[in-house]
């Protein structure tokens, strides 16, 4: 059984289409990253999947339950956790009181709830501050409480909307580590993020969203979608004559940075030896030759631009 099944999911606000014919599925234990620019429809998608807003057309099922059926929606809400883009905590209440309140709203057994509150506050290094009002916390600490809130009732599926945005590196790492631990526990996670590095590190698959889903694949396979391979040649010394012979070989692009030349070629296996030979013939001394793949940022920018 797929944990999340989305087929042709569409949401319109009047004439404006926020999400257009979205189709994807998630297996149990999978972390799926939704990448997209602001206004791409990421939050609207999460809200539809969390049964917070209705769809215009298409279908969305969580653990085989229909998000548009009111009875199913109540069951879905019970088995999912949401980390919204705003922490949305009660600032005058303590971290513990916030988690206790939400745990009870999720109808989670009281004994287990207390155990989970302690467990997650300890994991997130907030146990000593459990009785402090959330309003006195830093942004990173609030985000951790927000994450704990999404976890206290042991949800099978988690929706996270930009969980590490604007956080310091240490808080971001703590949250990423928790997400990776959740994958080991076989929880299914849909992660909205702008952070390409984060998506690459923790997601099994990535969907690039710009109202429509432009591409869905593993980070490695996405890299093959764009011609991002580049050859980096480091010379002892750079001069116009060497640059001239390189340009004469007609690579797709040439970028120079001091003694470093970055080349993009149609057929690197055939062209690289020819260019090296030309450089040496022109009196150049090659210190190293290496190849870089397209980064997720390159892929993302190219896909979104297209």
């Amino acid at each position, binding site marked *: 059984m797929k944990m999340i099944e989305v087929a042709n999911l569409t949401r319109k*606000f009047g004439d404006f289409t926020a999400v257009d014919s979205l189709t994807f599925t998630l297996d149990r234990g999978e972390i799926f990253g939704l990448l997209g620019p602001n206004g791409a429809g990421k939050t609207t998608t999460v*809200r539809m999947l*969390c049964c*917070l*807003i*209705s769809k215009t057309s298409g279908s969305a099922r969580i653990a085989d339950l229909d998000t548009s059926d009111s009875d199913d929606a*109540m*069951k879905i*809400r*019970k088995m*999912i956790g*949401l980390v*919204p883009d*705003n*922490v*949305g*905590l*009660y*600032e*005058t*209440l303590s971290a513990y*009181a916030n988690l206790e*309140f*939400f745990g*009870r*709203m*999720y*109808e989670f057994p009281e004994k287990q709830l207390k155990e989970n509150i302690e467990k997650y506050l300890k994991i997130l290094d907030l146990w000593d501050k459990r009785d402090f*009002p959330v309003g006195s916390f830093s942004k990173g600490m609030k985000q951790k409480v*927000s994450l704990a*809130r999404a976890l206290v009732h042991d949800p099978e599926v988690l929706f996270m909307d930009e969980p590490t945005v604007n956080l310091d590196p240490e808080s971001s790492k703590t949250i990423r580590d928790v997400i990776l631990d959740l994958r080991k526990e076989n929880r299914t996670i849909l992660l909205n993020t702008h952070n390409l590095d984060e998506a690459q590190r923790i997601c099994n698959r990535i969907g690039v969203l710009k109202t429509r889903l432009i591409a869905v694949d593993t980070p490695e396979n996405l890299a093959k979608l764009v011609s991002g391979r580049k050859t980096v040649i480091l010379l002892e010394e750079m001069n116009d004559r060497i640059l001239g012979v390189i340009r004469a070989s007609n690579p797709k692009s040439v970028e120079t940075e001091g003694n470093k030349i970055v080349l993009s070629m149609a057929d690197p296996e055939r062209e690289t030896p020819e260019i090296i030979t030309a450089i040496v013939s022109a009196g150049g001394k090659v210190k190293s030759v290496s190849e870089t793949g397209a980064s997720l940022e390159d892929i993302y920018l190219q896909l979104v631009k297209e």
Partner: protein
Amino acid sequence: MRLWKSWILAKKDLAVMRKHRSLATAVFAFPLGLSIALPLLIEYIILRKSATVTDVSSLLGAFPFFFIIISALLPLYISSYGIVGEKTEKSLEPLLATPTSDGEILMGKYIGAFLPVLVSIYLGLTIFMFLTDLLTVSKIGHFFYPNWGMAIVYLLGAPFACIYGVSAGVFVSSKINNIQGAYQIGAVSLIPLYVLYILGEVGIISLSSNTNLLIISAGLFVAVIIMYMLSRATFNRESILTRWK
């Protein structure tokens, strides 16, 4: 409707209210202050100016209407705070993501605003009756309170006004993003009550008449139903997340 879920939310709202001293003070200080100030007014202004028993009785009969107005004003403030507070803290989305129906959440908001105000109003009315009786028994010759007029205020007028205030607060808060603004606009909807009070003061209608108090309570009941329907129509997930400011 699972009332226990609404009660969890109401308890949270009450806990938040306790943390905001100004809010808690407003809820309890105003009715209690009034419960002491009004009898003192009777003692110092009326009795010492040798008012007749009829004058005193008429005045005493009109005073409980004051508590009806306050019963609507105070929950207006609390419910505005409850909704606008959730909006400004962005806590509505995670709350709506819990397995709780819109009706249960709304009911929780109603209970959280209704209970403290009603307790405070009842406390105020009881103190008011006790002090007034104490100060006027020698002049009137009997205990003026409790009477049927006060019973109508206790059992009908104050609770209906209170529910009206909560509903108005919820409805207005959906359109406004600051508590003071929501409170002030909500308070405008209470103009008919102020007009009634003025009409009572200038002698056009009698606010000590049991029949009139019953008619006012019935009017409040109708207003409660209309305002509840408006707030219920406004308070649904879709509207909150896509249309609320």
